[in-house]
């Protein structure tokens, strides 16, 4: 029945595809929210030095844990107060956006490259390649991520690079799964066969015929994995094995602030909310992109 309405509704759609897309984007509040918030956070990260006069590393042991502006006893010089070493919390929060974004983006890039390569190969070539890739995906899924990440970080010490690499090397599974099935869907379409028929090389067919048709899914997965990586880093930090101090990562700020959770909850609330908003924005962006690019799959 829904289909009946759709066909009926399609008849009266006179708008151009571009206008339609625009309407879908602006009609999708989740997507709008995601874009606006994410853009804001990116800008904050880029212009952090302009937004605060404080250095995120300068400590002042005599001015520890000054409360933020909405609490009694706050210092107007430190809008969001100071942390357990007397460092300006706002400065750490602003600079921390860089770290959290970097973790999300780079980890998603690495895992995206691995997962896409594997998924596309499996979907395109099928047969044994597919068997091997499917097997690897199974192996990867069977490994307890948090444990393995913990083990590796514990062995290699938790520098930013190590954490990003570990997350990147562990989170490729969803890319591979989604890319594989997406490629399977478009592999036998006419234009792909046509490209093959006129003798295009395999890389060319994949890059110019297949990839453009699966890139929507790729972007959606990438956003979700970004969020995933950011949350995982926070969890590692919570367990004491994330990014090393004094780097101002939000996960680290939460882990440092958690000690005082019951007494100074704002210490963990501020980076916690920042992390929550960032992950929320990325997730909404991903969901929104999926809805907009394939409204029939909404859900």
């Amino acid at each position: 029945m829904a289909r009946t309405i759709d066909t009926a509704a399609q008849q009266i759609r006179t708008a151009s595809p571009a206008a339609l897309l625009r309407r879908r984007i602006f009609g999708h509040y989740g997507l709008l929210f995601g874009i606006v918030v994410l853009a804001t956070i990116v800008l904050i990260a880029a212009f952090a030095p302009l937004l605060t006069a404080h250095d995120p590393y300068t400590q002042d042991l005599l001015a520890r844990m000054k409360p933020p502006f909405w609490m009694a006893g706050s210092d107007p010089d430190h809008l969001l107060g100071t942390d357990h070493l007397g460092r300006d919390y706002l400065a750490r929060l602003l600079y921390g956006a860089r770290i959290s974004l970097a973790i999300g983006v780079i980890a998603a890039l690495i895992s995206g490259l691995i997962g896409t390569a594997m998924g596309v190969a499996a979907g395109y070539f099928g047969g044994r390649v597919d068997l091997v890739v499917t097997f690897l995906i199974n192996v990867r899924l069977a490994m307890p991520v948090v444990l393995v990440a913990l083990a590796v970080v514990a062995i290699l010490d938790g520098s930013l690079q190590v954490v990003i690499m570990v997350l990147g090397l562990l989170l490729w599974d969803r890319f591979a799964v989604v890319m594989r099935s997406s490629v399977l869907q478009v592999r036998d379409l006419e234009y792909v066969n046509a490209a093959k028929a006129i003798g295009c090389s395999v890389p060319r067919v994949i890059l110019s015929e297949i990839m453009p048709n699966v890139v929507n899914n790729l972007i959606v997965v990438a956003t979700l994995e970004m969020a995933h990586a950011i949350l995982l880093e926070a969890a590692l930090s919570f367990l004491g094995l994330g990014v090393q101090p004094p780097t101002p990562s939000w996960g680290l700020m939460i882990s440092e602030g958690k000690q005082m959770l019951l007494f100074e909850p704002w210490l963990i609330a501020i980076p916690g909310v920042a992390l929550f908003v960032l992950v929320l924005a990325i997730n909404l962006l991903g969901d929104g992109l999926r809805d907009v690019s394939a409204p029939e799959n909404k859900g």
Partner: protein
Amino acid sequence: MTDPILSVRRLTIDIPLAQGTMHAVRGIDFDLKRGETLCIVGESGSGKSLTSLAVMGLLSGKLRRSADRLEFAGIDLMRQKPRTMRSLRGDRMAMIFQEPMTSLNPAYTIGDQLAEAYLLHRRASRVEALARAVELLGKVGITAAESRLSQYPHQLSGGLRQRVMIAMALMCEPELIIADEPTTALDVTIQAQILRLLADLQREMNMAMILVTHDLGIVARIADKVAVMYAGEVVEQGTAREIFDNPRHPYTRGLLRCIPVPGKTKPGEHLGSIPGIVPSLVGVVEGCAFRGRCDVAAPSCADPIPEQKEGAEHAWRCIHGQAEEGAPA
């Protein structure tokens, strides 16, 4: 003559859309007696399927249905609770859909699905229901019926599945059966078999049948009555003979132009194409919806169109007709 088993007056279906209300079906009337076959013809989007769903009470929640009268065997379907409607559906009125490939639940066996309606409406045991299923499978020409019961839909071919669908619709010996383009998804050769089967069963069980179709060849062979729908209206209806021999509406005539001799159109042949597009049905629709494509359109076509009648059954909505052509007698 007996009373009609189905009587429809001014049936209207509106679809609320973001851009406004779409008047998908606009005040149609028809009657159907026991043992009669009504064929509804028209192009996609003309409201044929919606009309049949409206009779079954299967329109989705967003669609608004209204009618001056919608009576089935003396029961006012407009005023029945969902519960009563459910007790009628599958029992006294049944429907066959156009996609046999997807209309069967992939998770259950043929036997389960056949038995379901019987178990829902009859005080019967599962064994009895399955026996009835075997009987009907035999009736729709499925061999080795017993062994089919434990099979799943994906193990059957399209033609077999449509036979199963027919058997399912007939489980409770309905008084009214609505077949919504039951053959469009099938091979041409199988189409004929299925339609012949339907027609035979309809006669045998003395059901009233509404057959929604594109296929004028079929219409010519099995219809007692024909309703031609265009843009949500029945633009012309009458006995098959009247419609084929003496079409009054320009649209009907356009449709028939590709079958010069009624009764000789081959099965499977499609409606001819008429240039132009169907107007939007969103918002207020005034006058004749066909006027944009009509060779004989006149300025007064934009005004409300009166219904013209000829004899007991033949009626059409056009400013032309009798006056221009004269009664063919």
